[in-house]
């Protein structure tokens, strides 16, 4: 259906292409000022991603500077969320009064996807020519003119070449490659036409249909390309988006549709950068690596000491240390390599700073240690604070003796209290969700009240599906081991898909276990543990049963299991279960209880020690309302009918308990109400 619609679109756009010829060769660019994702939450709840400072200069400036230096004459910055801030910023920056360049903002308040944005641009009729479509968070020094010229010749040869995508060659494990980016690009090795574009982390295999070879005798399959999100598009692209209102994303929908459609002859081409720099700040890890690249001058001429925005005064000294004028270094403080310090910042005595970026007007006290961190403007860091690999947004404060662990984000104006130790990967924000009835918001991110020490202000944000600034160590190890075990031998190929699900599952189990353990150790509120597990459940797309199965082993953990008596063991288990049953009961529902019992059996099978305690596990789960008696009976029946004698082991184990249940039920048939009270 979608394809038919497009056909009319192609017809409609042909009239606009005839217009091209008349209009002059003014180069246009569209900058998407919104990323339509939540990788930077909770920071982006208060400030758009494009205005986040990257080495103390807003991201948008890098993109605009790149476009301006490539000879683009007209730039439209399309903004959705926080559009006022972007408008305000551009109005007050040098972009508003540069000769030969006009930067205009467009606002699409209702746009929630890239597709919506492109449709809005189409309907505004401002684009007549081929234009550059770029994300507002791209840092690049590539020669766009060359790519534009190539696109133009391709267009002249074949009108159907509607888009040229820019890729950068970089090894699969390159630092500027986002962890979410796992694209495999198929290109006709002669015409450089894009044939296949697959970007799916879950899939461990890439499929190339044999039918492709009919048209393209040789296909280059490349895993060493990074999508720069710089596209040179023809106006048809917008028209196609307008005609297909279900397109939400350029990569996922538009490209996929064009490549798989047999009716349309539209072609997409590629342009591969080899020595030039281009990277998109897509998430926290890429924020980290692009910052490093700028410090290491890969992005030349866009480096701090070039002061290209004309409002900075950086100078470079040895060991990649950039300092603006007016930086106050007091006493014996130490500034190590790869460090940037903005105007008016002050660093106290005996403080140690390295591999970090400090914004303007920050006040850093005595004996502070900052390593690998991003401290934005106007932050206050009091004496004896340690900050490792964290982000502190503008106006955030860390009070005396506090510690901020790696991967933390301290959002705008949040305050970390005295002596408080912020756990690794914690996100603190002051943001209040005004429209609490907005359901999407709640699903992805939510604020939880947290105690932040004396004078601390802020809420903890639990985000799912977000990448951290620095990798969590255990996760990265897992990925490595995964790739080791991944075999390409054809014989095992068929099992591989199963294996993927399995490792994913194992990861999920591990994370749930970790969460529960941490929760118990830190004596968090049970509700909060529940909430976190729920988050994981959505993140990994798992059912409640999986949650139950993952949580239970943690509760069953008994110290010195091999040396204690059965009696001690059962009592500990019973104590644990009754204490934390609330977490379990949240996920327990009638339908899954039977399966859950089978899973417990399986668990006991795998862990000999628990075999003896099976009855007491079942019993305590029953007493705490996790499992209903119906489920237990059902399980007993099913096991009874099982031919396999081995399975009767467990049934015999808890025969006593079941009989007791049955008797209780028979008794209670007369006095129903009583029974329910008993359960509580």
């Amino acid at each position, binding site marked *: 259906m979608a394809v038919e619609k497009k056909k009319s679109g192609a017809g409609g756009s042909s009239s606009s292409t005839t217009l091209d010829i008349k209009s002059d060769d003014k180069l246009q660019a569209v900058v998407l000022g919104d990323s339509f994702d939540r990788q930077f939450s909770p920071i982006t709840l208060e400030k758009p991603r494009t205005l986040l400072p990257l080495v103390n200069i807003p991201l948008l400036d890098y993109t605009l500077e790149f476009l301006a230096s490539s000879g683009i004459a007209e730039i439209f910055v399309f903004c959705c969320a926080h559009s006022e801030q972007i408008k305000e910023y551009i109005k007050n920056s040098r972009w508003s009064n540069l000769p030969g360049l006009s930067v205009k903002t467009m606002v699409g308040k209702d746009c929630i996807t890239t597709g919506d944005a492109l449709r809005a641009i189409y309907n505004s009729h401002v684009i007549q020519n081929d234009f550059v479509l770029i994300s507002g968070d791209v840092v690049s020094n590539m020669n766009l003119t060359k790519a534009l010229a190539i696109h133009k010749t391709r267009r002249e040869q074949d009108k159907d070449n509607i888009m040229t995508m820019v890729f950068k060659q970089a090894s699969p494990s390159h630092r500027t490659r986002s962890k979410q980016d796992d694209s495999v690009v198929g290109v006709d090795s002669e015409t450089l036409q894009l044939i296949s574009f697959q970007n799916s982390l879950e899939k461990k295999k890439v499929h*190339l249909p044999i039918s492709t070879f009919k048209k393209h005798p040789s296909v280059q399959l490349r895993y060493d390309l990074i999508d720069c999100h710089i596209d040179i598009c023809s106006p048809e692209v917008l028209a196609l988006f307008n005609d297909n209102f279900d397109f939400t994303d350029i990569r996922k929908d538009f490209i996929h549709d064009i490549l798989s459609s047999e009716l349309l002859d539209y072609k997409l081409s590629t342009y591969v950068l080899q020595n030039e720099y281009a990277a998109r700040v897509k998430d926290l890890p890429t924020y980290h690596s692009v910052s490093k690249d700028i410090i290491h001058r890969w992005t030349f001429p866009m480096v701090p000491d070039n002061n290209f925005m004309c409002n900075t005064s950086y100078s470079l000294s040895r060991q990649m240390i950039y300092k603006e004028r007016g930086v106050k270094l007091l006493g014996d403080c130490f500034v190590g390599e790869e460090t940037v310090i903005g105007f008016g910042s002050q660093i106290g005595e005996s403080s140690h700073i390295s591999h970090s970026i400090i914004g303007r007007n920050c006040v850093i006290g005595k004996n502070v240690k900052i390593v690998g961190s991003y401290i934005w403007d106007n932050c206050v860091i009091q004496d004896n604070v340690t900050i490792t690999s964290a982000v502190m947004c503008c106006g955030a404060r860390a009070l005396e003796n506090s510690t901020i662990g790696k991967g933390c984000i301290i959002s705008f104006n949040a305050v970390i209290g005295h002596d408080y130790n912020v756990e690794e990967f914690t996100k603190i924000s002051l943001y209040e969700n005004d429209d609490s009835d907005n359901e999407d918001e709640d699903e992805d991110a939510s604020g939880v009240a947290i105690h932040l020490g004396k004078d601390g202000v802020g809420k903890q944000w639990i985000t799912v599906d977000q990448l951290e600034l620095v990798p969590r160590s255990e996760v990265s190890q897992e990925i490595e081991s995964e*790739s080791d075990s991944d075999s390409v031998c054809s014989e095992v190929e068929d099992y591989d898909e199963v294996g993927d699900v399995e490792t994913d599952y194992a990861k999920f189990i591990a994370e749930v276990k970790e969460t529960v353990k941490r929760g118990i150790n830190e004596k968090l509120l049970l509700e909060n543990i529940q909430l976190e597990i729920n988050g994981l459940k959505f993140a990994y797309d798992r059912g409640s049963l999986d949650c139950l199965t993952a949580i239970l082993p943690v509760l069953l953990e008994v110290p010195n299991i091999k040396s204690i008596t059965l009696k001690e063991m059962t009592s500990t288990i019973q104590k644990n279960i009754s204490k934390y049953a609330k977490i379990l009961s949240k996920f327990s529902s009638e339908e899954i209880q039977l399966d859950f019992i089978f899973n417990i059996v399986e668990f006991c099978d795998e862990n000999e020690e628990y075999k003896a305690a099976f009855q007491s596990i079942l019993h305590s789960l029953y007493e705490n309302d996790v499992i209903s008696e119906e489920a237990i009976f059902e399980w007993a029946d099913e096991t009874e009918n099982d031919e396999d004698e081995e399975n009767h082991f467990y049934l015999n184990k808890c025969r006593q308990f079941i009989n007791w249940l049955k008797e209780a039920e028979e008794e209670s048939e007369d006095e129903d109400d009583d029974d329910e009270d008993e359960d509580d």
Partner: protein
Amino acid sequence: MTEFQVVIIATDKGIGNSKLAPIDDNLPHCLLPVANRPLISYQLELLEKAGFQTKNTPVLMLVSERSQGKIKQYVSEIYKGNIEVEFVVIKDDIGSCEMLYRIKDKIKSNYFIVMNGNLIVDDSFIRQMTDQHRANDSSFTVLLKPSTKPEVPTKTGGSSKQAAVVEAPSKQDNLFTDYIALDEKKEKIILMEPATEAEDNIVFSKTLLKNFPNLTIYNSLQDTQFYIFSRWVLEILVEDQKKHIPTFFDLKKQFIPYLISCQIPDNNKNLPASAINDTQELALTMSSTSSPFNAFSQLNIQKKKIVKCLAYLFTSGYCINVNTIKSYQMANREIAKGYTPYLPFEPRSEKNFFIDQTAEVTPTQVGPNCVIGTSTKLGAKCSVKFSIIGKHCKIGDGVRIENSIIMDHVSIEDKCVINGSIICNDAFVKSGSQTIGTYLTK
């Protein structure tokens, strides 16, 4: 060329699948006449030209029980070259991997070549290819050639009917065009999916892509079934054959893909100890700059060898695998034209045809690019164009033969018209019959 022992697979089934029925029904595949020469003679000539020393390492020719007699007879009685051949009789149902396993003790050299008995190829590449194999310390090198484009039928003989014959359905052709992935330098072969095995998709795992992030998949290259192996790969086969049910049956379908997949490092596969490369160590001990006290040099020695599979692209020259009727016709036609390095045994005349002296032919009856064998008799008012006629044939009066292959001992009665056909040994064509585009067997 003493380091390379040659194995020619000349069994009826051969490596891969030939689609030559019905013309190979009564004749072993490798004895099919191509321009009146048995196919096998081209391979022996190739080895001779390339200068293979076969005194101590004879060419191992694998033959089927059924056809061994005829082939042995040809090599021992008719063949006059100086290539020593040792025959190994192989049962019909044995896969090519087991064949190699059986002859493993007969392979004495460090490297060995496995070639299919259906290959006709210029000798010019062999030296370069063997050098490439040795220099890179490769485990396996395959000769690839660009797949042949459908040939435009020659104008002169070109009636429309003939064109229909020549342009055989390309589907069959595709069977021999594999999906081959090479790395960016076009050196290493990363994936070889036999067209016969390929399903709807070609699948690449991301681990493979991580190791070879820039690869190109060709559907325009053909595997010529000319392989160079290093000797140690036999040990993989030996290990495998010890299993109750061996994993490898066919060289091309299982073993070579396996070997290629071994190229990915950390691929926990058990490679034999002899896979470990010690040439570097040897070189260091022989080097004048290294001293026994130089511990650092010891560190640099790469103990762990990874399997290396290379591709050699055949760029110029003549190369054809006679495995379909179409390719059989093509080989006949092109060799009869006389511009390949291989010529028919019959003497060449000025008008570019080849007629044996004992044949009873008036030269005016024969057009260019024809071959006529010993003792063949042509009747009056015959005309032969672009065709090959074998030995001891009797052809009646007024017969017209165009674009056809006629094998030995064929009798054709008067006034027949034979166009675009293949007439096999001992066949008999009745007078006045017309055969167009057919394959006649006895």
